[in-house]
């Protein structure tokens, strides 16, 4: 594995891998300027993105103009906070005023929104500098980010493997040091799965915690927005800027926003950690299972009480989540599916056609089941503070790998094998973060998923931070960087 500062890498590598927090601090002390760091990232994008395909649109001129404005404001003593002047990337699913928002599709290839998504506006208000719009699965409907219109996104840890999806471009960009952090969306695991496959922290907050106004929908009742970062503290820092009510998102929650960094170093002594007995350790890659069980032992060593817990809700939650996703996605795409079918990626179109065969009663049965399953799942947290599971059942598959063959003789498509453990929590709406938890013998990152009760992002991040301190990953660098 290559090390920081090694020879033969793209320019500005050490600066490029600073955490958001460290970068913000250097900008505050004026040891580094927003323009300087923005140029570092733009140079690295120019050097590495022709191979990675992490970006659909690079907004270099706009980024430099915004970085210049940030530089002047900081020099004038008008620093807005820890994100001021920090270059970030935005998944191309989020509306950006005056900048095309393709959703990874040909259908929206020329769509230029008049306004920013709420979360993009919040990042701008915090002074962040978007450097571009990242590649993704078409309309966020898949797990590989092998986009037929804008290039097949590659994994910086092994360019012959997928970066995951649907937020694969955001993950590849952060992992390769092309930006300090990125925004992703997650309707079945699309933040957490690519974070796991690319060695990052990916946070899906509680449903309604972060606005989805101005985000091209996939599954209205399961869409979530969140940060993808290289450290847990950075995820907390970004969530602080993103979270809060938004009257323009009908699903937005008025629940008070916590201080996500305030208690993040409190450790896990005395906390109750549950390892689900059902579902999450069935058909899982051996290295992944060993890493997750090792993470549980690590937390136990830090004073947590780890116990196996039943979770019979997981399998039906996965089933109901799939049905709701199929129905809601097809409902959104109905008009284009009838008028522009040839403009879709054939794999995405096939998924949309499946949704057209579901009955209204199927959808409503899944939504009724959801109410029962959420009630039951929330009660689990009377006994535990967090649940630990693998994020993906397998590490990053090869780009040409379509089926995973399990030792029991069954086969599963890549989408199922990499999203099976995450989708459960889109249906349930619970906060969940994926953090790096080791690697395969071949050096591919593995992900640990930590799940909490509704609106317990601070608890989930606290456990993630304790794990991160015990099993540090941040200093690792992928070969393609």
């Amino acid at each position: 594995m290559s090390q920081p500062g090694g020879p033969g890498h793209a320019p500005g590598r050490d600066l490029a891998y600073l955490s958001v927090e460290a970068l913000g601090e250097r900008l505050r002390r004026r040891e580094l300027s927003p323009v300087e760091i923005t140029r570092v990232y733009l140079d690295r994008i120019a050097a590495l993105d022709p191979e990675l395909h992490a970006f659909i649109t690079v907004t270099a001129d706009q980024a430099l103009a915004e970085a210049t404005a940030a530089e002047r404001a900081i020099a004038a003593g008008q620093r807005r906070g820890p994100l001021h002047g920090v270059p970030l990337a935005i998944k191309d699913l989020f509306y950006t005023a005056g900048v095309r928002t393709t959703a990874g599709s040909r259908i929206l290839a020329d769509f230029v929104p008049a306004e920013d998504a709420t979360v993009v506006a919040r990042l701008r208000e915090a002074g962040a500098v978007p450097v571009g719009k990242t590649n993704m699965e078409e309309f966020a409907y898949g797990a590989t980010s092998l986009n037929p219109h804008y290039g097949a996104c590659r994994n910086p840890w092994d360019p012959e493997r997928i970066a995951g999806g649907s937020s694969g471009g955001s993950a590849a960009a952060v992992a390769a040091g092309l930006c300090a952090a990125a925004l992703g969306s997650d309707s079945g695991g699309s933040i957490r799965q690519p974070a796991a496959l690319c060695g990052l922290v990916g946070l899906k907050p509680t449903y309604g915690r972060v606005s989805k106004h101005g985000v091209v929908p996939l599954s209205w009742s399961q869409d979530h927005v969140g940060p993808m970062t290289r450290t847990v503290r950075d995820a907390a820092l970004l969530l602080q800027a993103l979270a809060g009510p938004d009257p323009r998102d009908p699903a937005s929650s008025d629940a008070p926003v916590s201080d996500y960094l305030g208690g993040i170093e409190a450790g896990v002594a005395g906390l109750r950690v549950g390892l689900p007995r059902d579902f999450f350790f069935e058909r899982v890659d051996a290295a992944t299972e060993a890493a997750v069980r090792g993470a549980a032992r690590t937390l136990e060593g830090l004073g947590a009480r780890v116990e196996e817990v039943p979770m019979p809700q997981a399998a039906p939650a996965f089933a109901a989540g799939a049905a709701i996703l199929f129905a809601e996605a097809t409902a959104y795409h109905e008009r284009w599916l009838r008028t522009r079918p040839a403009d879709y990626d054939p794999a995405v179109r096939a998924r949309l056609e499946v949704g057209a065969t579901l009955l209204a009663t199927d959808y409503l049965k899944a939504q009724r089941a959801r109410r029962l399953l959420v009630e039951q799942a929330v009660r689990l947290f009377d006994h535990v503070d967090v649940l630990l599971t693998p994020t993906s059942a397998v590490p990053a598959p090869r780009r040409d790998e379509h089926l995973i063959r399990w030792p029991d003789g069954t086969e599963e498509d890549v989408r199922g094998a990499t999203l099976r453990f995450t989708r459960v929590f889109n249906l349930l709406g619970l906060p969940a973060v994926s953090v790096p938890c080791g690697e395969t013998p071949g050096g591919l990152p593995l992900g640990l998923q930590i799940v909490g009760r509704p609106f317990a992002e601070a608890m989930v991040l606290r456990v993630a931070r304790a794990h991160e301190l015990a099993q540090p990953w941040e200093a690792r660098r992928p070969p393609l960087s």
Partner: protein
Amino acid sequence: MPDPRPTPSRATLAALTTAAGLALPDAALDALVRPVAAVYAAVDSLDGLDLAEFEPAAVFSLAGEPPGASPGA
């Protein structure tokens, strides 16, 4: 608990997709059989839950303002 639905035939899928306004060739209909059967099985598996007292999770709320214009769907 009711019996699970049988694997849908091409004719069933043709009827459903036509009703949805789609005109799919035979090859596309054939390709739908397996994934549709899997989704039907997933939905039918929920019959094992006791849902008698449960309304659907909220898909309607009077709180908040309407979302902004979508890009056209």
